[in-house]
Structures are given as C-alpha cells and as structure tokens.
C-alpha cells in the first residue's frame, strides 16, 4: 500500500503501471505533510485509518480491471497533413506532448536517417532504458530528439554516451527525474571531441552562444521528456523547475587548467573523449576580483559554498566547483593541487549548526548523523560533502574573476563514460565525424 499526498498521486499511479502493478492500493492524504504541525498530520492519519484497513483487506482486482490508463505504446511515425513546418506543425507537435515548449526541428525521415548514420549504429539498437517510464531509448528515438533539438549527426556518439551515463545506476535517474529538487543532468565534455564538435569551454560557456552546448544539452533534456516520460507537473515534481532543465552542457577548459582534467582524474587517456553527467542545480556565481593569494581566494570561495538549504549539507553529495582559469591559476601558483582544493572545501566550507532551524538540527542532523552532530555545540560546522574526495573541481570559463558553485542533488553520483565508435572502441580525432 502507498500512503501519498495529493500532488504525488499521478506519479505514484504512473510508476505502479510501469511496474505492472496498477492495482497496488493507494490512500491519499491531503497535502502538505512536511513542514506542518504534527497534530494536523496525525489527524490526517486517523481520518484515513478505516480506508487504509479496508483497502488492504479488499479482494485483489485484476490488473486489467483497474481503472487506469494503459501503458503508452508509442507509434513509430506520425503523419500530419501540413507542410507548414514552423506554424501548424509546431502546434501539432506540442499537442502530441513533444518538446520543451520551444520550436522543434521537425523529425522527418531524411533528418532522422542522417542522424542515425551519425551514430554509426543500427537505428533499432538499444542505447538505454530511461527512467522513470523505463522507456527504450533506441538510436532512432534518440536521433529523433536530437533532430528536434537542432543537433547535427556528428553529435550522436556523444549523445549516446550521455544517455548511457545517465542510465547508470549510481546516477539514480529515477530520483533525478521525479524529485521536487531542481536538479538537471549537467553534461561535461572532456577530450578532443569537445573542440571537434564546438562544445565551448571558455567565456560564456553556459550560454547563450553559437556553440554545440545548447543543442546537446537540449537533446539530453528532450530524451528525458520523450523517452523517460519526465513531463513536468505530474512526473517531474520539481517545485520550481530550473533554467538548467532546458539544456545544461559545457566542456572543461583543459587548455587553461593548471591541473589534470576531470577525465584524466577518472583514468581516461588524453586522446579519449568523455562525457560526465552530474546531477546538479543551476550554477551560483562566486565573484572575487580582489584576492591575489590562494588562501584569501579560497576563503571567498568556501564562503559561497557554505550555505544552508542546499542538498549537499543534508546528503552524501558531490558538490561541484567550477573554477575560472584565472582563479585556478591564482590557487595553483602557490602549489595547490586539485586534491588540496578539495580538502580546503571539505574542511573550511562548513555551515555552523546555529544557522539551521531547530527542526533541521534535530531531524536532519541529530537523527541522520548522530555521531557527527549530536551533543555538539551550535558552532559545530556541517560539511558540504561526506568525504573530501567527493568534492568535484573543474576548470571552466574564460577571462575574468568569476567562478561558479553547482550544488548537487545528493541522491546521485556523477558518471563518466568514454565516447565510443560503433565497434566499441573509444572515438579518437583521427576517426573523424559524420558530416551533415
């Protein structure tokens, strides 16, 4: 039996259908449950008690007899009687539930065929099952979203790797797609493919700009909507949503970094290209134009990172620091390695318990981390990671004294995969790219 509050009914029903158990009994309690006086919550339980017992003990209906929508059975093609690509056809595609609300490049046979060729894989090859719908993302379905997003065929190998990375269990795509938190998969590209595809790593890399960042990020989002079924409101339960959910893709500025790249840290050779997916919030700026030494600059950075209200203080997350090349150079000039930066963030970016409400201190910290915080002074600091190794450091951006902090979801681990050729070996620059 599921006890759920009102706004989550459709998500629960959809998941029960996907799991093949639409007849699972549900009892709906009036929302909200959290953040309300306990007396009221317990009264809701009392009011629902008879229904709970009755539904647990009533005969099990056949799945076919349960009033619920059948599982979606997507067609392969949709015929539309208009050639008005940027007018009537756009309205038709919106009516089909396709897209992110922005105009879509119509996924015609010719365009999708070209995109499939770009992948170098059969159109019916399975890329991954995409949560929460557990939709089968074949190369052709991915190619359709890629066309709609404005991608080129050359983007396909990278998109295949990104979708596979999101489907890896540690990424927890089910949680990423359905949480109330404003998390979006940030795709970070490393290696020579970034330059070959025009994935921008320098000034203004989060956009806007005439680079591949926008269309790659958008194609990833369209796959999450079209294949994963992560439609906002009913399934994607993000309270606020996020501009990052329209598209969130960058490259690491390896040329301007004084340190090994993210891919190198994860064991990939310099001529292998990778995608890393990080379940993160939209980035928050860190402005420091004045500090000329590593210590004071890191103090400014840790001051921005150490904030209440982010998931990283509550859970075992991987906070992501995006250092601008100039900030990274200032820090590295005094001999700091990436690991040194990680240790500083872990040790210094702490939020004193007194900055949290008493309810959060008691419920979040005393109960979940009793050894660390129970019976501690209110001056005790809450870390933004459970281990210093979990802090991620990436160099990105162009000229200027602005770095960024990306708080992460907490119930997700970043995943890095190589971009592969059709034969399963890593793509390398001499392999070239499909044109078109």
């Amino acid at each position, binding site marked *: *039996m*599921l*006890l759920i*509050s009102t706004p*989550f009914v459709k998500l629960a029903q959809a998941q029960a259908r*996907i*799991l*093949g*158990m639409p007849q*699972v009994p549900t009892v709906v309690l009036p*929302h909200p*449950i*959290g953040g309300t006086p*306990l007396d009221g919550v*317990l009264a809701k*339980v009392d009011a629902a*008690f008879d229904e*709970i*017992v009755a539904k*647990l*003990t009533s*005969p*099990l209906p056949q*799945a076919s007899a349960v009033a619920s929508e059948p599982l*979606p059975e*997507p*067609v*392969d*093609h*949709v*015929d*539309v009687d208009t050639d008005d690509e940027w007018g009537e056809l756009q309205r038709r595609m919106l009516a089909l539930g*396709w897209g992110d609300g922005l105009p879509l490049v*119509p*996924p*015609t*046979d010719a365009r*999708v065929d070209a995109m499939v060729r770009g992948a170098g894989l059969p159109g019916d090859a399975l890329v991954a*099952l995409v949560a929460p719908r*557990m*939709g*089968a*993302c*074949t190369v*052709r*379905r991915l*190619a*359709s*979203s890629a066309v*709609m997003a404005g991608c080129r065929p050359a983007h396909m190998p990278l998109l295949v790797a990104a979708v596979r990375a999101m489907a890896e269990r540690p990424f927890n795509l*089910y*949680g990423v797609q359905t949480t*109330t*938190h404003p998390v979006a998969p940030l795709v970070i590209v490393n290696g020579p493919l970034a330059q070959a595809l025009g994935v921008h790593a320098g000034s203004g890399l989060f956009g806007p700009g005439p680079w591949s960042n926008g269309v790659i990020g958008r194609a990833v989002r*369209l796959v999450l909507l*079209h*294949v994963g079924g992560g439609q906002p409101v009913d399934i994607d339960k993000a309270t606020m949503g996020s501009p990052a959910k329209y598209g969130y893709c960058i490259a690491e500025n390896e040329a301007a970094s004084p340190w090994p790249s993210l891919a190198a840290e994860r064991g990939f050779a310099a001529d292998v290209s990778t995608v890393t997916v990080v379940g993160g919030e939209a980035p928050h700026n860190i402005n420091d134009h004045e500090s000329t030494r590593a210590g004071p600059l890191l103090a400014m950075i840790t001051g921005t990172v150490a904030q209440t209200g982010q998931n990283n203080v509550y*859970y075992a997350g991987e906070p992501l620091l995006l250092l601008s090349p100039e900030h990274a150079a200032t820090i590295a000039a005094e001999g700091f390695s990436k690991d040194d930066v990680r240790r500083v963030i872990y040790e210094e970016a702490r939020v004193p318990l007194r900055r949290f409400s008493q309810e959060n201190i008691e419920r979040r910290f005393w109960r979940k981390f009793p050894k660390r915080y129970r019976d501690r002074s209110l001056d005790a600091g809450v870390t933004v990671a459970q281990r210093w190794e979990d802090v991620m450091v990436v160099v990105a951006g162009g000229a200027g004294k602005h770095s960024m902090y990306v708080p992460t979801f*907490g*119930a997700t681990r970043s995943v890095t995969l190589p971009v592969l050729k059709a034969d399963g070996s890593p793509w390398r620059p001499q392999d070239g790219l499909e044109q078109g």
Partner: protein
Amino acid sequence: MRLNSPEGRPVPPGVAVVPRPASLAGLRIGLLDNTKAPVDEMLAHLATRLRERIDGVEVFHVAKQHPSLPVEPEHLAALRANADVVINALGD
C-alpha cells in the same frame, strides 16, 4: 509530412502481485519510511492505531537511507522475510 516519434516504448520489469489478506488480524505489517519529515512520527502513530484496533497485529518500521534512493537490499530482505503487508509512506 511524416514525423518520427521520439517517444520510447516502456519496458516493464514485471512484478508479481500477491493476493490481499481478508483481515489484518494476527498479521505482520511492515512500515516503510522514506525519511521525509515527519513520516516517522506519522508511521509511529499509524502503528499505535493498528495495534490498538487490530487483534494480534505485529508492526515494525523500516527507514530508507534517502527518500530519493531505492530501498536498501537489507531492508527489502527484512520486509520480504517478516512482513505480510507493507505500507509505504511517500510523505512530502
């Protein structure tokens, strides 16, 4: 004009559904807590009511590590082994 659908066909994992009991009397009820506030107090209250009103019922409480992660294998095994009925509270 012919458009290619970008939608993915669901691949259900397939779950067997057991019959429901005619009565909760004497049964073991597992309460699965997603750890969102205040589900623990809510389920403790439900456990009290179940014990008060249902003869011979046994109730036990299992809490996930994180509301957005799947239930841990050891908790799932405990529910399988010790519960006739499971109530999963998805509070928010």
